[in-house]
């Protein structure tokens, strides 16, 4: 695709037909169309997506100095609209241009997507969304595809079930998909090497719980007139209290590390992979039952849609490399290896936009131009 594409009459007609087919599926299942503004205030993306997305976002300012951007996705503005209007559960869909800096590729591209917001039953929502994506892709003319699935919740459950020093649980959950970085992190934990603020901790060990808070506050005061930034003293007290609870020299047990590494290596036909996980996590089986059953249910739903078992691949370290996913994640790939759609659960986004606590969210986005090229080429 050229960097600055011009669409001719045939391209436009084909894109329109495809959009009609996809949006038709969304509408049939009760998804209402929304078209957020192309120009968006930059802050809602910067504060939700982090710098990784921002470096690919086109930012500009208007003559009054307000920071704007060309929407890098339609999910965040669509969700924001719902937070402001209220009323759950909500089923919303969109089709339009998104803008991202992609070296060697066009910065603008069409996306069709759907968001299911505030449905209490997560299992039901996951299945509805992945099924919706399948139906939309088929309506757009894609007959053959592979599905890749993962679940950030499975790994999080495993980490919580295992004997892991409390201070490191968050680190493990945040970084499991960064393969090189994660291996080094794990090795440091097993070796008991930690770069945590040791001096402060040494001063606190052996204190009783009720003595901790004043001791920590005294340590902060000793730094004199130093600023806090936007962090509160309570946040510092909380973090140090958690670290003290790990004891003087926490280490990650080597067997625990092996189980984590073994888990993250699992990748292959989905049914067989779940069996591998069951086998590997036998020591904490009771904790893993629920998330494993949820994944089995999703696989069952895909099977019911006529997707052959060997077409669904489970990848344990699959996190869609995006920061806001929290649970089930999926991608659809054409047989010649092009990603045509993806999505998943991102339960923390709605709350960060101001929705009531616990408002769920699951969605998908289809890369309509890539999909059209494949369908046209008969690949």
């Amino acid at each position, binding site marked *: 695709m050229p960097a600055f594409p011009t669409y001719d009459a045939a391209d436009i007609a084909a894109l329109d037909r495809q959009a009609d087919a996809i949006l038709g599926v969304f509408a049939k299942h009760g998804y209402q169309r929304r078209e957020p503004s192309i120009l968006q205030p930059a802050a809602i993306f910067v504060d939700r997506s982090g710098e990784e997305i921002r470096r690919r976002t086109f930012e500009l300012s208007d003559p009054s100095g307000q920071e704007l951007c060309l929407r890098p996705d339609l999910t965040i503005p669509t969700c924001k609209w719902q937070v402001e209007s209220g009323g759950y559960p909500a089923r919303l869909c969109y089709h339009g241009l998104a803008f991202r800096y992609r070296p060697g590729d066009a910065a603008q591209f069409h996306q069709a997507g759907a968001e299911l917001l505030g449905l209490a039953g997560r299992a039901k929502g996951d299945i509805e969304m992945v099924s919706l994506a399948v139906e939309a892709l088929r309506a757009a003319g894609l007959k053959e595809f592979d599905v890749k699935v993962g679940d950030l919740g499975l790994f999080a459950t495993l980490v919580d079930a295992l004997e892991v020093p409390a201070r490191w649980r968050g680190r493990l959950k945040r970084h499991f998909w960064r393969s090189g970085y994660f291996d080094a992190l794990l090795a440091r934990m097993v070796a008991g090497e930690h*770069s945590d603020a040791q001096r402060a901790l040494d001063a606190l060990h052996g204190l009783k719980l009720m003595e901790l808070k004043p001791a920590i506050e005294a340590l902060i005061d000793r730094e004199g007139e130093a600023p806090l930034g936007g962090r509160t003293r309570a946040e510092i007290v909380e973090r140090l209290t958690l670290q003290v609870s790990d004891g003087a020299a926490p280490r990650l047990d080597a067997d625990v590390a092996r189980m984590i590494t073994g888990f993250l290596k699992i990748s292959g036909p989905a049914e067989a992979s779940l069996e591998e996980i069951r086998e590997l996590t036998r020591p904490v089986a009771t904790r893993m039952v629920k998330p494993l059953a949820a994944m089995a249910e999703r696989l069952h739903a895909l099977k019911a849609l006529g997707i052959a078992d060997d077409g669904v691949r489970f990848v344990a370290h699959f996190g869609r490399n995006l920061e806001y996913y929290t649970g089930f994640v999926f991608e659809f790939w054409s047989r010649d290896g092009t990603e045509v759609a993806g999505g998943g659960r991102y339960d923390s986004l709605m709350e960060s936009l101001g929705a009531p606590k616990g408002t769920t969210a699951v969605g998908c986005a289809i890369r309509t131009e890539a999909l059209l090229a494949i369908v046209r080429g008969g690949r």
Partner: protein
Amino acid sequence: MSEPVTLAVPSKGRLKEQVDGFFAKAGVALQQTAGARGYRATVAGHPGIDVMLLSSSEIAASLAAGDVHLGITGEDLIREAVPQIEGRVTLLKPLGFGFADVVVAVPRSWIDVSSMADLDDVCAAYAHRHRRRLRVATKYTQLTRSFFARAGISDYRIVPSAGATEGAPTAGTAEAIVDITTTGSTLKANGLKILDDGVILKSQAQFAMSQAADWPDDAREAAAAFLRQLNASTQ
């Protein structure tokens, strides 16, 4: 004669004084070009070299764009202007002055933070608790992004800072900063501390070559002759 080789040197500030001293030691005499109001000069004995006096950050940008052939400026500015330096700008010679470190610094009152891994924890907790990203003030946007990405940190946002970055946490416009420091005393005076593994770059002044500029053979020879003189006197 063919097109001259352009050499950009700092036009003002501490770095200009140090470059002047370095040239004097190397026996390089700059002669101001009449009528150019001090923005152009020639080098005695090197007729193929045309000197332009620019600000340090303009020199880095000009090297990146290929607007000048050679330049002397801080490595920090070059690496910020040219994130993928390979094939674009070659650092020919570190000059032994203009030393400064680009560092990650946080409030000293954060007694629970001494490493990038700590900062990663804090960024994640902050985003969760405050529903916005922890702010890092800096003029080194590119260096900060790639260093934080290597440290696995993504829950933060950069606040561009034009000057007095070290005051941002006190002013309440950022939680942490990435800035340049020589002795660390300015950071200390502002209640900040450098993270143990928070040194992004140990910078000094560099004699650098732009690969984006045109380099006909005679230009290469003129540049090589000039570099030989610098090298001979500073071995």
